[in-house]
């Protein structure tokens, strides 16, 4: 009798579940398509290292948060769901913040308020609202992985552009010779573009990424 009641069990990596991970990487990217998590994407993309640490923090918070919210989804009254969600995220972010301060103090200082602002990173709340509140823990976990990786891809792309052309470095290694001593490319008159380091360029870079992505996939083009 119990066999009739039980729904057929879905394999852990079914096609549907794989799609949850792969879609946010491109066609449903959280930054360029869903317009979530822009603030941090713009503010901390000066160096690739910062972008990677930020992605890892968001991945940890989103994966844990999505699972917790998904487990609690039937217990949360909808009137106060936002407060419940925020408390879950805030506790997770406090943990991440303390870990960063303990093991990567330099990085924690560079990221300054932006670690705290993971709480209000719209990716997190957006995925809670749109996915975890309506789905089981395992798909929610995969959705979290997919979305934070999609977020990470954009962050890393932008930061690679900004670090190479703005600072002439990658992972802190100087690419084109030493600027102050004027060796390498600098000796023949190459200059780093200081505009690229400034915050507004991050917006241009994301705009360009959107342009390339939508030119390749016409289905994503907006009417206006």
């Amino acid at each position: 009798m119990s066999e009739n009641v039980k729904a057929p069990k879905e394999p852990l990596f079914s096609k549907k579940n794989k799609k949850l991970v792969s879609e946010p990487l491109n066609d449903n990217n959280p930054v360029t398509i869903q317009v979530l998590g822009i603030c941090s994407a713009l503010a901390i993309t000066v160096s690739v290292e910062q972008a990677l640490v930020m992605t890892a923090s968001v991945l940890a918070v989103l994966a844990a948060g999505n699972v917790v919210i998904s487990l609690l989804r039937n217990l949360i009254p909808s009137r106060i769901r936002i407060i419940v969600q925020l408390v879950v995220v805030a506790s997770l972010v406090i943990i991440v913040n303390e870990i960063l301060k303990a093991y990567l103090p330099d990085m924690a200082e560079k990221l300054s308020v932006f670690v705290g602002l993971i709480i209000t990173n719209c990716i997190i709340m957006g995925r809670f609202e749109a996915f975890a509140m309506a789905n089981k823990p395992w798909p929610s976990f995969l959705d979290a992985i997919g979305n934070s990786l999609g977020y990470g891809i954009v962050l890393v792309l932008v930061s690679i552009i900004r670090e190479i052309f703005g600072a002439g470095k990658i992972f802190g290694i100087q690419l084109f010779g030493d600027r102050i001593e004027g060796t390498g490319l600098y000796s023949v008159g190459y200059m780093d573009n200081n505009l690229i380091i400034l915050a507004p360029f991050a917006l241009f870079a994301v705009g360009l990424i959107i342009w390339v992505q939508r030119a390749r996939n016409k289905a994503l083009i907006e009417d206006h």
Partner: protein
Amino acid sequence: MDYVNILIKGVFIENMIFAYFLGMCSYLAVSKTVKTAVGLGAAVIFVLGVTVPVNWLLENYVLKEGALSWMGAEYADIDLSFLSFIMFIAVIASIVQLVEMLVEKFAPALYGALGIFLPLIAVNCSILGGALFMQERQYSTIGEATAFGIGSGIGWFLAIVAIAAIREKIKYSHVPAPMRGLGITFVITGLMGIAFMSFSGINLGGSEEKEDNKDQVTAVVDDTDNTDDENH
């Protein structure tokens, strides 16, 4: 006079959108028409104007090191500042819930237009960012904190109304198809950001103490956006 300085600084020089990129998500998503932009902008001014002073009280009488000394000498060396994230966000979330109920009751049309973005004011980075900057800059009175909150709110309001007006007009121009909508909005925001950078050199002539605060703030910006000083 100090209040006016802080207010103007919040609106132009330290504009939430153009100087710190806080609150970009709702800024990009709700700026399709001027009408909804005005509604959301007004809600943000209100929420910032209420939450920043409330969080200032919380910071100064509960969280900060030694803040609990009003309860008695034995509490004087308690430092609860690691709890600030969760306390600030709890205050913000409850006030936003309140605003949501009020708007739903008194302006249902606006409620429909704002859709999911009304609850998302709670996670609008500019609101929590306002609280965190308030904590970092250590405003000395609740009046200054309020002026800062309202000023930042007005700055955010100006930014979203400006971009909404531009987006309404840009419908009539020939933007390359893949850039339509989101892409061109990013580029316009970048250009406006460059324009707003011209405010950054303005010194409003506040007192000594204010100067110190400003230095702290610029130090944060250097850390996050502007590493070129180190590279030169």
